[in-house]
C-alpha cells in the first residue's frame, strides 16, 4: 500500500518506495518523439509529487522482486545518445524502443560524458497540473497504475540543448481535473483599456466568447417567468380583455394590428399599446415602456457607439425622453431590456450579433445587472427572446406573432407582463442592491443585512 497525503511527505518512506518502483510495462509511449525524458533530474521528493521520467536505458528490476516480475517482454536495452548529439539537437529515440516509466538516480540518468547540470533549465512549457501515468509493482508483482502530478522545484531540471517549439509537449499532456484553457475577451485587451471598441472587433471577440455557450432552450420563458411569479395571471381571460381593446381577434385567434412594416417606431407603439391593454383589467400602470428614441442616436455612457432599436426604460425615464419641452438622452444605465427589429424575412445573422453587442455593453455599464433580456422581431412576424448572462446565452425558439392560436400569443404576453409590470428582478436587475444616481450603488444586502457602499475597488 503506497502512502498518500501527508504521509508521503515523510522522506523516510521515500527510500522504500524507490526500491519498490520499476518499469514492468512496455506499453506504447505517448511522449513526443523529439524529446528525451532521460534528462530530467530530481532528488529527494516522493514519487507522487513529480512525474516519473522516461528512461532511455533499460534498467533491470531491483533484486528483491526479480523473481516475481516477468521482464522478458521488455525491449532490448539501448545506450544513451552521445553528448555531441545532445548539445546540437533533440535526441529522437524510436518510440517502439522506449521502455516504460522508471525511477533512476541522478547519476544513472546522466548520459556518459555529460553531467546532469550541463544545461540546467526549467522547461518553459512545464505545467504543474499535467499528469502522467506511473507504473508501480508491489511486492507480489502486481502492476499498479497511478496518476502522478509533478511540482516544480529546484531539483526538477532538464537539459535543454535548444529552444523547443511553441507547442512542445502539449500534445502529449492532457490536464486532468483542471480548468480548461480558454481565451476570454479580457485576454485580448486589458480590463482597464478604455479605447473605443469598434463593431468588427467586438463581434469577433463576442463570437469567440459565446460560440460554445449558446443554448437553445425550449422552456426558457416558462422557467424565467413562471406562472406563480407573474404580476397578474396570463391566460385566456387576458386575451378577452385584449379583444375588448380591439387588439385580439377572437375568430382568427390572432393579434390585430401587428405592424406589417416592422420598424422601430411601429413596433414600440404596438408593444406599448399591448402593454397598456393587458394592465387595464387589473388596474395597473406600466412600470416600464418601450422607446425607440435611440434608434438614430447612440446611447451615452459607452465609448462603443451603438443604437439599440428598442429599449425598455422606466416610466419616468420614458416621460423625460419623450417630453415635448426638454428631452433627455438615454444612457446605457437607464436601459432595462433591449429589442431588435428587422424587416428581413428571417432572422439574419446580424440580428444575433447586434443582440450580443448590446447585451455585452449593458453588462459593462450596469454593475447591478444579473442578466439581459432581449426581444427580437423579424419581418415575418416572428419573435424570439434571448437571455444573456455570466454563463452565456439562452435562446428561445422562434414563435410567430401572426399565426393563429393562443400558444404564441400567451407566450409574448407573459414576456411583456414580466418586463413591463414585473419587479426589477424580472428584467435582470439585482434587487439586493440599491441604486443611487447613475450607475452608482449605495447599498448592498447580504442575508438582509445592509452594507453601505463606500467605494468600488473593481
Amino acid at each position, binding site marked *: 500500500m503506497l502512502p498518500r497525503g501527508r504521509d508521503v511527505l515523510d522522506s523516510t518512506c521515500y527510500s522504500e518506495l524507490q526500491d519498490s518502483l520499476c518499469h514492468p510495462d512496455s506499453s506504447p509511449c505517448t511522449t513526443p518523439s523529439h524529446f528525451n525524458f532521460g534528462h530530467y533530474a530530481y532528488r529527494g521528493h516522493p514519487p507522487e509529487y513529480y512525474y516519473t521520467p522516461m528512461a532511455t536505458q533499460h534498467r533491470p528490476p531491483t533484486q528483491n522482486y526479480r523473481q516475481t516480475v516477468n521482464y522478458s517482454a521488455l525491449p532490448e536495452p539501448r545506450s544513451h545518445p552521445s553528448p555531441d548529439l545532445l548539445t546540437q539537437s533533440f535526441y529522437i529515440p524510436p518510440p517502439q524502443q522506449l521502455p516504460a516509466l522508471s525511477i533512476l538516480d541522478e547519476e544513472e540518468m546522466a548520459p556518459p560524458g555529460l553531467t546532469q547540470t550541463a544545461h540546467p533549465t526549467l522547461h518553459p512549457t512545464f505545467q504543474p497540473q499535467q499528469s502522467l501515468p506511473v507504473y508501480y509493482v508491489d511486492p507480489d508483482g502486481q502492476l499498479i497504475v497511478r496518476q502522478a502530478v509533478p511540482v516544480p522545484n529546484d531539483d526538477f531540471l532538464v537539459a535543454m540543448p535548444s529552444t523547443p517549439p511553441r507547442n512542445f509537449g502539449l500534445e502529449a499532456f492532457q490536464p486532468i481535473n483542471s480548468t480548461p484553457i480558454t481565451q476570454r475577451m479580457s485576454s485580448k485587451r486589458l480590463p482597464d483599456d478604455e479605447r473605443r471598441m469598434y463593431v468588427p472587433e467586438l463581434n469577433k471577440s463576442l463570437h469567440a466568447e459565446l460560440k460554445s455557450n449558446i443554448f437553445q432552450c425550449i422552456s426558457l420563458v416558462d422557467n424565467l417567468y413562471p406562472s406563480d411569479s407573474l404580476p397578474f395571471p396570463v391566460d385566456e381571460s387576458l386575451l378577452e380583455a385584449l379583444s375588448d381593446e380591439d387588439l385580439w381577434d377572437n375568430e382568427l385567434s390572432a393579434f390585430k394590428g401587428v405592424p406589417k412594416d416592422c420598424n422601430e417606431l411601429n413596433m414600440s407603439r404596438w408593444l406599448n399599446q399591448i402593454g397598456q391593454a393587458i394592465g387595464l383589467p387589473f388596474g395597473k400602470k406600466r412600470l416600464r415602456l418601450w422607446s425607440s428614441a435611440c434608434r438614430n442616436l447612440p446611447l451615452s455612457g459607452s465609448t462603443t457607439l451603438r443604437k439599440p432599436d428598442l429599449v425598455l426604460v422606466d416610466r419616468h425615464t420614458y416621460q423625460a425622453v419623450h417630453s415635448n419641452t426638454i428631452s433627455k438622452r438615454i444612457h446605457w444605465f437607464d436601459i432595462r431590456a433591449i429589442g431588435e427589429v428587422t424587416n428581413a424575412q428571417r432572422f439574419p445573422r446580424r440580428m444575433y450579433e447586434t443582440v450580443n453587442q448590446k447585451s455585452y455593453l449593458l453588462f459593462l455599464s450596469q454593475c447591478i445587472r444579473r442578466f439581459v433580456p432581449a426581444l427580437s422581431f423579424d419581418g415575418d412576424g416572428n419573435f424570439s427572446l434571448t437571455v444573456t448572462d455570466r454563463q452565456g446565452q439562452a435562446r428561445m425558439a422562434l414563435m410567430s406573432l401572426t399565426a393563429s392560436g393562443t400558444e404564441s400569443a400567451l407566450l409574448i404576453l407573459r414576456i411583456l407582463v414580466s418586463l413591463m409590470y414585473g419587479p426589477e428582478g424580472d428584467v435582470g436587475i439585482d434587487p439586493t442592491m440599491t441604486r443611487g444616481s447613475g450607475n452608482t450603488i449605495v447599498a448592498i444586502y*447580504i442575508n438582509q443585512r445592509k452594507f453601505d457602499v463606500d467605494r468600488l475597488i473593481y
Partner: protein
Amino acid sequence: MQSLIGRGTQVWVVKHLSKSYILKDSWVQSGRVGSEIDFLTLMKGHQYLEGRVPKIFEGEDIKVNGVLDSTGRYRVDSGQANYHRIHRRLAMEPIGEPLIKFRSRAEFIQVIIELVTGEFILFYWMF
C-alpha cells in the same frame, strides 16, 4: 475589455455599523468543490491563521424572491448543471492595501512570508 462570461467579480469597500468591510460579489460555477463561504467560516477563529487569511463577516448565495439566483434557473433542460453559475456574495475583513503598494522591500518580503506561511498552515491543517 472585460469578459462577458465568467465570474464577473466585483469588489467594494462597504460599511456596516461604521465598521468597514470588503464585499465581494461573483458568479461561481456550481460544480466547483466547496464554497468560499464554508472555507472561510472554517478558518475563522483558527489561532495560527489569525491575520493570515480574510475573516468572513457575512456570506450568502443570493436569493431573489426566495429562489436561488442561478443561471441554471432557466436552463433546466440544458444538462450542464456543473456549468451553471451561482450568485455569491460575502463580506470580509480586514481591508488591506494592494500588494503593489509596499513601502520597502522588507515589508514586501514580510507579506510574502506571511502568505506562504498561511498557505502551509492551511495545507497541513486541511489535509
